[in-house]
């Protein structure tokens, strides 16, 4: 079968996990991939653990990332790392929230987009697709703030992970 890239985003309700996965799915869609994204809404969102699966490649079947098959796990809240770890495959990459230098983040509400910036450093998706997806999802007055947060995360992950 064709290679499918599996990404799981985890955090707590209210952190913007679902907004981040919307942007991620849209960015890979703009980059020309087949994409599926799945999550749960409703009672599970009331302040509890939230996670969202995004899968992309030439052809995706199930919208859910099978346990143990995530290539990347992006976690927005330290307490949620262990909760989500079983989704990660043996050589999968964990992107934990400490990758973002919080002192340089202007507004903590854009933390989710900063984390996407970190993920973007590891994926082969054009930067323009990311920025277009961010701008399509967020109000115009928030664009500059989030562009900066995205750039911050992208640079931080390059320092941390040294992607080739």
């Amino acid at each position, binding site marked *: 079968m064709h290679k499918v890239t599996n990404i799981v985003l985890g955090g*707590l309700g209210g952190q913007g996990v679902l907004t981040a996965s*919307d942007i991620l799915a849209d960015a890979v869609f703009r980059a020309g991939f087949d*994409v*599926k994204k799945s999550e749960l*809404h409703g009672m599970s969102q009331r302040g509890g653990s939230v996670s969202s699966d995004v899968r992309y490649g030439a052809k995706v*079947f199930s919208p859910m990332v099978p346990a143990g098959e995530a290539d990347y796990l992006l976690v927005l809240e330290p307490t949620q790392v262990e909760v989500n770890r079983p989704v990660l495959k043996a050589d999968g990459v964990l992107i934990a929230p400490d990758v973002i230098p919080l002192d340089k983040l202007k507004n903590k509400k854009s933390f989710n987009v900063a984390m996407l910036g970190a993920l973007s450093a590891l994926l082969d998706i054009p930067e323009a697709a990311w920025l277009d997806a961010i701008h399509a999802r967020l109000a115009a007055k928030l664009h500059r703030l989030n562009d900066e947060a995205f750039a911050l995360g992208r640079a931080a992950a390059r320092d941390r992970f040294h992607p080739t």
Partner: protein
Amino acid sequence: MSTEPQLLNGDEAVALAALHAGVALGTGYPGTPSTEILEYLDHIGGRAQWSPNEKVALEVGIGVAFAGGRALVTMKHVGLNVAADPFFTATYTDVDGGLVVVSADDPGMASSQNEQDNRHYARAAVAPMLEPCDSQEAYDYTLLAFELSERWKIPVILRLTTRVCHSKTLVRPRAEVAPPPAPGFRRDVPARVMIPAFAKPAHLRLRAKMVEIAAWNEAQGPNRVVAGDKDLGIVSSGIAAVHAQEAAPEASHLILGMSYPLPIETIRRFAAGVERLMVVEEGDPVLLESLRAAGIPVEGKPEMYRFGELNVNRVRRILAGDTSPEPVPPKGKPPELCQGCSHRDVFEVLRDMDCIVSGDIGCYTLGVLPPFSAMDTCVCMGASIGVGLGLRHSLPDEQAKRVVSVIGDSTFVHSGITGLAEMVYNPPKTGHVVIILDNGTTAMTGLQEHPGTGRSLNHDPTGKIHFEALGKAMGIQNVLSLERFADGHRLESVLRELLDKPETSLVVVRQPCVLAAPKIRIYERAALEKMSHACAAMPAD
């Protein structure tokens, strides 16, 4: 119409198709995972409205379809229980406009009180059922459902599940969709007035329709074979189909888009071409039993996979016949009432007073969890009142006097009003106390309006039901309202006084939901502005 692909979730795809089909009206009641269908239909310019409950929503939909308009009626799986009464007879009638009923099932109970499998409804009510596996099929099958509904004048069920509703996948809309019929009244008494004299032939007609639809499904139904190895053939429908294709890419697959009435001969031919045939289905063994009843040798899943959602790993285990214990994922943080939530204080009082709390469906069901641990029953929408009355009727007096029914505002309008009628009509000898937790919104499903908010689905002002006036008009002896911030400290003394009286009482505790309050202020401001513009535009006498 643009055929450019869009990334939509299943709910949005249904709404887009309904818009393209020229739907006259979308009706429904909010319920995870179906809620976004009508919200998105309104958002993209269609006409959509929330009804007080699913029964009324379906009845309105039947009327729209009798008038020749296309109607989309949306609900979660348990909503179809509420709408079952009109549904089971609507199938006997002839509709002119297409009537599509969306049942959004929640296997695994992400946000529901049970995981009933609504495929049983298709057979029980005798209605064709379509089951998309992704957003593209959700779009395509919505259009197909309208087409079939009009061709055979029958309501059609579009069955979605959580992972179809809330997964985003690519949708390529159609360039052209057949325009809707023009509404107009056509009198057809034998086909629409279900007295026994007309219903008897109507039942015969319905069965004849199903024979025709089954033949259509065999010849040109939305079922597809994905050819593969001959040693394993898998029959599936809905979301299970994509899990199965991923879990067994080498196998032959028969994916059923229309799961009722089944294309049994198509399945039989597929079965004949493979050495081993398996059904992969989420929930109950509905397909399995139908195939076995038709004499097709087929294997199903071990009983343990009846429970919860399927996923790729579980399907791999099913195919391998693996019944060893499944790995248990680490427990996440459970949901909780928001900080500042207006329900918190009420449950603290109920806990501290050691009340027996008959609860209901909504955010406030979280009152069952620590630190409140203040709920003793929760069954279905509206049950708090009837169950509370039943507890009062049978418990010894000292316990009966501690029973309180707690119900949210939207749930109260949905199915609490008849509970009040019961309380007035058959009052327990110790009396009873019903508390409406009025937070001014349908919070759990994502802040939808309802008839008690005075705003319609798109948040424009409309008629409003006043709970206290309703309670008084129904003859409840004590009707009180408390504004939580102003009177919150009084709740305990008020409750003590009422619990001590052998009388019927209704207490409305009012405080907007913390998540909804900023939005409500915006809606109210917009309504005022609209009104002042309208006044300014009025001609002076």
